[in-house]
Structure formats: C-alpha cells, structure tokens
C-alpha cells in the first residue's frame, strides 16, 4: 500500500479545467517534485491534498486514511508556503509552537489571558516549549526564537517555516515553491538542506516548483504537469533521457531540446533536411512527427563530413561548456549544440560546418505530442539524399 | 458540515440585511416624507408611499424659501477654490521636502506634524477676530483662506513622492527641466491617484463643514449647503417636515450621487486618506 495516493482528482472553475483527472502514488519516505509552467495546476493539486481547496471529484488517501472529506486541520499534513506565511506578530519560537498549541491545548486554554490561568495547561506549554527548542536547535535557528519574522532574513524565515512544518511530525509534507523567494546562491544551498531534512523525517513529500533544475536535483521522482494533466511521473534520469511527451522533453533541460517538425514519407522513411532516416519500426506514412535531440548529443565537424550542413550564428562561452547556436542550411531550423570548450576551438560565427547527431539519441514524437516508442533508435543515418 | 454552513450564512445575511435596513431607513423616510402633505405627515408617518403626491409643492416651498441654487453654487465654489489652493500650495512643498535637500526641511516636517494635530476649531477664535477686524466676514475669502493650506495634503503627497524613484527626477534634470518643470510635467502626472484621493477627502470634508461657515457667514448670499439648511430650518417656523425633507433631499443629493457614481474611487480615497477623519 502506498503512503499517499491521489486518485483521479479533477477541479474546474466554470469552464476552466484546472485539473483533468490527476492520479499519483507516493511510497513511504518518497520525495516527489510536481513541476510545470505556471498555471499548469500543480499548486492547486497541492492545495487540494492539503485540504485548503476541495476537489470536484477524486480521492486522496494517505497512510491508510481517506483524507478526502477531512478539513485541513484534521489531515495532519504540514505545508511550507512560498511566502513562508509566518505570523508576523509572533516570534519565531511562537510561530513554531502554533501547530502544537492547536493540537495539544483546548480552545479555552488557548485564550490570551484566561487560558494561562486554567489548570493543567502549564505542563503542556512546557512540553511544547521543549519541542520547539529541540526543533530550533536541530535546524540551527535556536538564536532566532525570540525574533519576529520582520527582523529576519529570507533564509532565516525559510528555516522557521520549515521548523513550524516539521515540529508536529506530520504524515505528509507539502512544499509550495519554498525556495523561490531566496537569492540564487542561497537557493542552491537550501536545496541540499531540504533533501537532508526530508531524509531525516522520512515523510512522503510533495514539492511544487516551476524550476526544472530544482525538481531534477532534489526529487526521487518528478511529476511533470501541463495544463491540468500529468504528462509523466518518473525518476529524474528517465524524465530527462526518456521523456514520454514532447512537452516534457521541452520543459526539462537547459538549453532547450532541439526539435524539427517533419512528416513521414510514403515509404515510411523520414526526410530531415538533406538526410533520410530509416526508422527501426514502421511509422504511418504521411503522419506529422517531431524529431528531437538534446544539444549534448550533437557534435560539430568540418564541412564535407556526413551530417547536416549548417552555419554557426553565435557562440556562448559558459566556462565548462560552449553553447553553439547554428542554423541548418537546408531547412533554416535552429540547432543548438553543447560542446566542451576544447571541442569548440576554431569555431566562429558565420563559419559553415556539419552537425553530426548521435543516431540512437534521436527521439520521435507524434502529432499529439506523445512519444512514438516504436522507433526508439534509427538504424543509421542513411546516405545523403542527392542534394 | 454543510448544514452549519448554510445556517451560518443565513444568520450572516439576516444580520447584514437588518443592519442595512436600519442604516438606509433615514433615506427611505426622507424620500417618502418629501412627497407627503402636511396632514398625512401628522396622521400616518409609517406608510412609505404618500397617498397623495405633494412632491411638487414641497420642492417648490424648498426652492422658494431659500435660494437652493445659490447654496449649491456656493458649495461648489468654496470646495473648488479650497481644493485648488490646497493642491497648488501643497504639491511643490511636498516635492521639495521629499526630493530636495535644504536646511528647513526638518523644521517644516515638525510644522506639518504639529499642524496635523490642530483642527479649525482650535484656531477659529483668533482667525475670526482677524477676519472681523479686516472686515472680511461674509465673503468667499473668509470661507476659503484658512483652508488654503492643508498640512494633511502635504503629508499625503510627501508619502507618495518619497515612493517615487529618484532616478525619474535625475533623468528629468538631465533632460534640462527646471525644478518647477519637474513638478508640473513629471510629478503631477504621476501623482493622480494621490490627488484624486485627496480631492475626495477635501471635498467631503468642506462640503459638510458647518463650524467655520457658521462663524464667518451670517449673510445668506454666502451660505454653504449645511449653513443654508440651518437658515432654512430657522425660517421654517412650524413642523413643515414635507418641505424640510424636500430641502434636505436637494442638499444631500449632489454628494450622495457623486458617491454612488464613483463608489470605487470614494472607497479608495477614504482608505488612502483615512488618517485625519
């Protein structure tokens, strides 16, 4: 039995279908990143799991409990918000204590003045204080507990928000872009910290982000969402190397994957510029397809070598690699090639070259965007079509 | 759960509706009574629709006893003049305080903060003595002059200008504009939200003000709407509530209509200038 299962969740606002039936299973202790462009429904899905919004249909089960009809407070989930959502009038310590106070104190005991006079609450409060201190110490924010959010830096607030989420030992951990308000340096550092914390807590985690690099680097599995549908849920390597959908391939990876629109010829072969490619298995003749290949699986050779003739338009030197922007001579499509600096020696803008793809890395997608599995590899790049 | 939800909402809507009814009752009775004849007012005050329509008669009386046109005109002139003076004087000052360096800025800030504390009621005695000895009572000057300076306007614009980027002004200077040119062509066009908010605040405050007009004006020719209504009440010896309600309706209408038409701006303006009530 999985630790969290989301079954066929839908949500619409009027004619606007935000979620078109999302299903997803997470194992115990698994870290799943929900990634996609803004407006794809990932945050809505997270808020539905949290109980902050209701789904139109579908089911959410966690740890054997059906959460679908429970309010947020009863679900024992923790959430870290993009804005951190710390209570500005409470100190860091008081912020961390809120979930415990809500759970362990009665509503009478929580009243401002009267509450502190009721019997029995002192021990509970002491216990809460102890847990807060422990949590603050383990996140190395014990020196901040008496400060209010307004007096803390972004990174410190983020840690307080994490502490508030973790202190009550939730059954499920939800994070809504928790790093997007940090500056670039801090963000990379915080990625490692969150993964670390997650490993220690061992709680299934849903992590929403629009940053594909964040998703790939942190998650056990990545769920790529586009306009309300879950396109692929798989390990980061699979998402990158073996995307199930053209949109997934385009969304993941920097620079963006090279794509060339084409059509299957009458004999089942594919013409790519001056090349004809013979797929491994048959494609329906006449159907529209997209051929895609990542920039690192292209190389540049001298003019005259078998390959795709092109002109270099522009070079970007990035230190450990060089990005070469080219334009194919035959069909005018842009091709981006990623090279090691040593391979880029002697390349200048305007130079005519030949681009050589690694044949087994070419991917073909159908008109609906789905990957055409049948032809994972092209047998070879065939001979130059007379041109 | 859904049960308590609907019950809660029912209670909420009932409370809101009852409250709204109480708050609107005076307007309902004002409109109803303005159309009733003397005898009906005395016999059945609870029926809302007049059995016989006396609207024409009552409005004729209201227009006959006091020159309503003059009152409304005075209100427009006085509020308009006050607003123009306040803005023309406050904006350059607020700009200088927000964006220019000069020695008196701190003193000026202290004066503004002090000024925020002092309402017209506190300065009216010496001002009255002064206007009296200058023989300026019963004039537009007396009605407008004390309000030509609004420290609140300076305060509001100051906050607004401080939030404007310095680079905007530096760029204007490099383009060769004079400081006055900057105020007119860069600051003012960008300050419209603050200016409209202040306009609403200022007009509401001075259209409604009774205290100062009551002190400096005894001649009906210069009466503002609230003062005029007071005169009308004095002239109306008996309980001719029909005519009185008609007059009330006429005098209340302009500002209420303005509010209903530009509700969003009104609310924004009140929110922005909420400070000094």
């Amino acid at each position, binding site marked *: 039995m999985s630790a969290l299962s989301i079954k066929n969740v839908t949500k619409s606002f009027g004619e606007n279908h935000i979620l078109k039936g999302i299903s997803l299973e997470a194992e115990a202790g698994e870290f799943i990143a929900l990634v996609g462009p803004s407006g794809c429904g990932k945050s809505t899905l997270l808020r539905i799991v949290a109980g902050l919004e209701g789904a139109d249909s579908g089911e959410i089960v966690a740890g054997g409990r059906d959460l679908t009809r429970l309010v947020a407070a009863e679900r024992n989930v*923790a959430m870290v918000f993009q804005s951190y959502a710390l209570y500005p009038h409470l100190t860091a310590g008081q912020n961390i204590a809120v979930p415990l106070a809500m759970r362990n104190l009665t509503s009478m005991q929580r009243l401002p003045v009267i509450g502190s006079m009721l019997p029995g609450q002192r021990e509970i409060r002491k216990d809460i204080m102890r847990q807060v201190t422990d949590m603050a110490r383990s996140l190395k924010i014990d020196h901040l507990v008496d400060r209010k959010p307004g007096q803390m830096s972004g990174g410190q607030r983020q840690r307080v928000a994490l502490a508030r989420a973790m202190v009550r030992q939730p059954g499920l951990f939800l994070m809504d872009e928790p790093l997007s308000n940090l500056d670039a340096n801090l963000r990379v550092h915080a990625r490692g910290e969150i993964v670390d914390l997650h490993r220690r807590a061992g709680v299934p985690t849903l992590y929403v982000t629009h940053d594909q690099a964040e998703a790939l680097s942190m998650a056990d599995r990545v769920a790529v969402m586009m306009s309300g549908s879950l396109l692929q849920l798989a390990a980061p390597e699979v998402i990158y190397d073996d995307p199930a959908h053209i949109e997934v391939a385009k969304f993941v990876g920097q620079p963006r994957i090279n794509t060339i629109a084409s059509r299957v010829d009458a004999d089942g072969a594919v013409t790519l510029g001056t090349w004809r490619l013979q797929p491994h298995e048959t494609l329906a003749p006449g159907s529209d397809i997209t051929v895609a290949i990542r920039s690192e699986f292209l190389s540049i050779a001298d003019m005259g070598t078998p390959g795709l003739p092109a002109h270099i338009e522009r070079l970007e030197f990035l230190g450990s690699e060089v990005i070469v922007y080219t334009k194919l001579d035959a069909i005018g499509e842009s091709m981006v090639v990623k090279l090691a600096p040593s391979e880029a020696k002697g390349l200048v803008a305007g130079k005519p070259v030949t681009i050589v793809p690694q044949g087994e890395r070419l991917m073909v997608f159908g008109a609906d965007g789905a990957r055409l599995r049948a032809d994972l590899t092209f047998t070879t790049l065939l001979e130059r079509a007379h041109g | 759960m859904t049960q308590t939800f609907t019950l809660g909402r029912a209670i909420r809507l009932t409370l809101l509706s009852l409250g*709204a009814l109480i708050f609107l009752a005076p307007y309902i009775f004002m409109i109803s*009574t303005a159309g009733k004849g003397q005898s009906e007012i005395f016999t059945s*005050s609870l029926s809302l629709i007049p059995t016989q329509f006396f609207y024409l008669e009552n409005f004729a009386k209201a227009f006959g006893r006091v020159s309503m046109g003059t009152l409304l005109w005075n209100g427009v002139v006085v509020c308009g003049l006050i607003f123009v003076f306040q803005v023309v004087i406050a904006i350059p000052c607020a700009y200088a305080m927000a964006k220019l360096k000069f020695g008196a800025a701190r003193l000026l800030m202290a004066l503004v903060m002090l000024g925020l504390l002092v309402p017209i009621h506190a300065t009216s005695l010496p001002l009255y*003595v002064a206007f009296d000895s200058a023989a300026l009572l019963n004039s537009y000057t007396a009605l407008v002059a004390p309000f030509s300076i609004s420290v609140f306007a300076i305060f509001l614009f100051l906050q607004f200008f401080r939030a404007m980027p310095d680079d905007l002004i530096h760029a204007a200077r490099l383009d060769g504009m004079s400081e006055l040119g900057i105020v007119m062509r860069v600051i003012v066009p960008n300050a419209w939200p603050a200016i409209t908010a202040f306009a609403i605040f200022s007009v509401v405050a001075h259209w409604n003000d009774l205290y100062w007009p009551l002190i400096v004006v005894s001649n009906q020719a210069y009466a503002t709407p*609230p003062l005029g209504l007071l005169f009308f009440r004095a002239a109306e010896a008996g309980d001719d509530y029909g005519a009185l309600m008609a007059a*009330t309706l006429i005098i209340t209408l302009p500002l209420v209509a303005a509010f209903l038409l530009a509700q969003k701006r009104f609310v924004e303006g009140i929110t922005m200038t909420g400070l000094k*009530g």
Partner: protein
Amino acid sequence: MADMTAISLPVEKSRPIVNVSERHEARVAWMLAAPAMILIILFIVAPVIAVITLGFTDFELGYSTFKFVGFENYAELFGDRTFRQSLWNTAIYTAIVAPASILLGLGVALLIESETVGRSFFRTAYFLPVASLLVAMATVWQYLLHPTIGPVNNLLNLIGLPGPNWLGSAGTVLYSLSMIGVWQTVGFNMILFLAGLTAIPRDLYSAAEIDGAKSSIDRFFLVTLPMLGPTTVFVTTISVINAVKVFETVKTLTEGGPNKASEVLLFTIYQEGFVYLRVGYASAMTVVFLAVLVVMMFAQYRLVDRKVHY
C-alpha cells in the same frame, strides 16, 4: 612641476562648484516650500500662539482694550458648571460612540468580507451616511425621532411601547445624539477595517488551517485580530478624536439643551466665543480642547510604537 599645478588647479576649483549646485537646490527648495510655510505660520502657528495668549486675557470682542489676567480664566473654567457639564457630556458621548462605532464597524466589515452575495450593496448601504451631509441627515433624524409624529415612536406604539421624547428630554437626549453619531461613523470605520482585512495575506489563513486552526473563531484569534492591530489603533484614534469634535448634530438639533443636557465641548466654545463674544474665556476652553487632542494623539503614537511592531 608645471604640469602638476595645471592638474591640481581644476581640482581645487571643483569644490565651490559642488557648493553652488547644492546652494541652488536649497534655494529652489525654499522657493517651492515658501508659500506653504508662510500659510502654515499664518493660519496654524500664529493662531495657536494667539489662542494660548488670549487664554490669559479678558479679551472680549467689541471692547477695544484688554488686560492679562493670568490663570483667572482657567480658575473660572473649572468652577464653571456649564463647562464641567460640557466636558462630562463630551466624555459620555465619546465613551458611547467610539467603542460602538469601532465594534460595529469591525463586525460589519467581517460579515461583509466573509459573504459573497451583495458585498458592494452592503458596503454602499453602510457607507452612505459618511457621504451624506450631516446637518441634513440630522434633520431627517429629528423627524424620525419626533415624539408624536416620528416614525420611530409610531413603530414603538404599534408594538405597545411608550416612545420617549428622544431629543427633547434631558434623560435621553445625549443617548439619542450618540445613536446618530454611531449611525454616521460606522461606515467609515467599516471601510478602514475592510481595507485592513484585504491586506491580510491569504497564505496566513491557509497556514492557520494547516496548523490546526479548525474553526473560523480559531483563525480569527490567530490571524485576523492580530493582523488588524495597526488598523484598530488607527481607527480607535480617529473615532475618539471625531467623537470629541461632535458639533453639527448638537448645533442642528438641540443647541445644547434641554437644560444643558447635550452641552458638548465645541458647542460651549462656540457659544462663549462667537455668541457671547467672550474671546479670552473661550480661548482658555480651546486650550483645554487642544490639550485633550494632543494627549490622545500622543497615546496613539506610544501604542503604535509599542504594540504594532512586526
């Protein structure tokens, strides 16, 4: 050597250039601020000084001479039964109108905020009195509260209750005026509270729900009330100051009567200063009025500094 002097010369010259541009900026600033400054001195500073000075004289309008009488006016003030009554009435009026209009304003704002239907209608309805001419609406209230022909008493009679003489009897007049005062100011406070409520980040409510604040009452105490802190301090100050400045309704409806039962501070000052023309004496009263305002503003600054610091 010759080169070096040639280089150092412009450097020395450049210092006064900076000063010239700073002086120019200061001069322009002075010119822009001068009209405002002169008018502030003319219409605010000078009159305040004059009122304080006049408070120590026996100046009366119409007499050409006056003399300084020290604290005589103040001594008379605190023996003056009208003035004491007036202070007391103002205090009662404020003690009713300020809390009632704040609580009702908050209540209405909360109800409207949590309701989806008819929001703008309700907002308009409650705000209308703020946009209406108070003198005019006071006249309408006078009719509504008329002891014999007024709809309010007719309504009470209908359900068998005797209607009081709202504005005409010393026992009820202050409460009736307070009621009108509350009616007039609730909308204003409501708008400010609504603005305060909209400014609360939605995420805080989500966080509170996740943290276990199940009921809306829990969330009110955890999020809404603390987050409205600054607005509340602010609304309180305005409400108190406006209540202390009550004048229009008293002047229009009761002239302080019956039997001084609705005599309030500004009305007393108005009577003494502009009807009896005892300027010196009225000035002393004005100083007391001003002192009350200063104390209340000061209390607000302190409260804001202490409590509402995030």
